């Protein structure tokens, strides 16, 4: 137990950053070029026409034209019903419909699917994933994540953490958020993978990953994608592959508790599968994939059933088209 405490303390000190540690973008660009790195930004979207322009214009102007830190901005969309892709293209992003990438594969829909297909579609040695619904978007969301990897070749996966005010009715709170993290993810990590509990916000949607790590891990296409990343990379590379960066505030849409319940249900499926594979626990029954939530209607309770299966894509490196595109024998 003492070892775990010590390991976590050591890791936190060594591998936890603040975005201001990487304020010198000119120096970072020089270092990136010295290592011959290419960096891609992937923004997964679904109906984000009101938010996407701001992210694209800001990142393109600041991090491609002014400081050439990233080499491409790609919006990968799950099939928006609004003008997300048109708006993104108008402001200069490369735009893709997830179903058009590797189209011969059976169609799946979910954020994880977009993230997985980005590995095939994008060219970077490092891929940065940033959600589209961040209203206080700033270049720090990118350079804060890339920084540790540019300066430390041994770091392969950098996760964001925040003070997370929730924006729902225009009111900004000084702290809060991360409810699924604190109620589910950190407790189960603490039970079975205690070192991973040191990742301050394991479910944050912003992270940067080296390609050689990314193409080696399977991808749940739903809620479990971040959880599975952490467990799989931890098992393969240990804590030294991880770093985390404080990006200050992230203002985003709040989610109702029932939506968080569905998220937790998906994460648990992913977790139980991983923990079973790693012989951390034995699940002796077939999992039920229906989540039942309840609502009151006309004075009585009604069941609302959600069928949630955390389907997974295999490691991208196992896909022949990928191996061919990237010249892997």
């Amino acid at each position, binding site marked *: 137990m003492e070892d775990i405490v010590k390991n976590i303390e050591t890791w936190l000190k060594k591998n936890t950053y603040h975005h201001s540690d990487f304020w010198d973008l000119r120096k970072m660009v020089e270092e990136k070029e010295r290592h011959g790195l290419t960096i891609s930004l992937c923004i997964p979207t679904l109906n984000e026409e009101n938010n996407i*322009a701001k992210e694209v*214009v800001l990142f*393109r*102007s600041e991090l491609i034209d002014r400081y050439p830190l990233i080499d491409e901005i790609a919006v990968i969309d799950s099939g928006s019903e609004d003008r997300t892709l048109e708006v993104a293209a108008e*402001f200069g992003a490369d735009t893709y419909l997830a179903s058009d990438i590797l189209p011969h594969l059976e169609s799946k829909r979910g954020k994880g699917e977009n993230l997985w297909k980005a590995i095939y579609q994008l060219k970077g040695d490092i891929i940065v994933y940033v959600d589209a619904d961040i*209203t206080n978007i*700033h270049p720090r969301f990118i350079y804060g994540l890339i920084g540790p990897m540019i300066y430390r070749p041994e770091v392969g996966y950098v996760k964001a953490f925040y003070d997370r005010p929730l924006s729902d009715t225009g009111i900004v709170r000084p702290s809060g958020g991360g409810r699924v993290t604190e109620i589910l993810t950190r407790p189960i990590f603490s039970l079975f993978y205690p070192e991973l509990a040191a990742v301050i916000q394991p479910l944050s949607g912003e992270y940067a990953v080296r390609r050689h790590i990314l193409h080696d891990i399977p991808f749940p296409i739903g809620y479990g994608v971040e959880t599975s990343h952490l467990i799989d990379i931890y098992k393969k590379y240990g804590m030294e592959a991880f770093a985390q960066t404080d990006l200050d505030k992230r203002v985003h849409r709040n989610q109702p508790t029932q939506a968080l319940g569905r998220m937790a249900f998906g994460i648990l499926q992913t977790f139980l599968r991983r923990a079973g594979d790693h012989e951390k626990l034995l699940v002796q029954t077939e999992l039920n994939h229906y989540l039942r939530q309840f609502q009151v209607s006309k004075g009585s309770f009604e069941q609302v059933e959600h069928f949630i299966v955390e389907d997974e894509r295999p490691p991208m490196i196992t896909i022949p088209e990928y191996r061919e595109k990237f010249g892997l024998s």
Partner: protein
Amino acid sequence: MNDVLGTRSWENFQDILNGAVGLAEELKPLQQFVLANLILLGETPAPTFGEERRMQLLINRFSEVGLQNVENDDKSNIFGVLHGSEGKRNIAVSAHMDTVYPDSTDHTISVQPGLVTGAGVADNSLGLAVVASLPDLLNRLNIRLKNNLILIGTARSLGRGNSEGLRSFLSNYKLPVHAGVCVEGVQLDRLSHASIGIIRGEVLVRTPEELDWNGFGNTSAILTLNEIINKITDIPLPRRPRSSIILGQVRAGAAMNKRATKARLGFEARSESAGIVREIELRLKEAVSEVASKTGDDITIDIFSTRQPGGISFGHPLVRASRDIFDALQIKPRYEPSTSDLAAFIDRGIPALTLGMTTGSNLQMDDETIDPGKIHLGLAKLLSVLMAIDGGHCEEH
């Protein structure tokens, strides 16, 4: 005065006019620099007298884009120099950093095709973003002026700020300024070459917390203020010189069911004649004194901002050149007298203009809006005017 590629010249004024539309086209893909600066600067609150955070951001940006001698002064102005190839004269381009919005306002900016919305985007985050972007734009367009360009983000411009920032800068800057351009976010057709005389102030009415049923005072500060307003509206104003009194803001009371013990009126009086402005000031003070003596209420009038009318004439070469540039870009100019920083240039006898960068609406409301699709026209207008000044086409002989 040819650019590096030898394709642009401003030695001859006609060349500037001939190139204006092409310049606007070249600027279209560069608008993103302005939009990015607009987001970064505009999401940082900068109420008048509280501009420090925006100032710090602008210092960084000025330094990043290669301005020389970037400095801030004790009024929180920021300035830096883009040295010209000859550097004999100095052209100042300024935009005020401050806004009417307090820190507590949500400063999030929303960007959509054809629409950018947020507190202060038009007045004056866009103007400031343009000034911050100028070195990049000139560099990417291969335009190197022969004269020095002094870029200034001014503090304490609005309201009680009374253009204190720019006035202080012009008083203390070590080099002479030969011409000035104030950049405002809106409107695209704005061409201000004169400043009207102004007084701005506030009337504050206070009534006792405890109501004196035997006193002659009004039962509410609102009623007293209403009497003052009636007196103000009775002040005669001439049609020529053009004059007006704007009653812009009233704040009073705490709740519907509670007698108001405080009431404030914010006003601005404007005239093309300095004498009329003085006369209006006198009448306002008389109105306040009269109502105070009648009601016994505590009434004060605070005039915190004054400007003298003046400016350069319609026929001044700078205005004439600007008119021609507007024409070349097919923008019909609207000659609106300035009520802002332009007066600081005028007071020091520096030929100067105010130009707007795009169209916009809902000014000084939380959902201020601009059209980003026209910024390239505003930029082309600004750069053409700067080239005209630089080429010596705007000087009186």
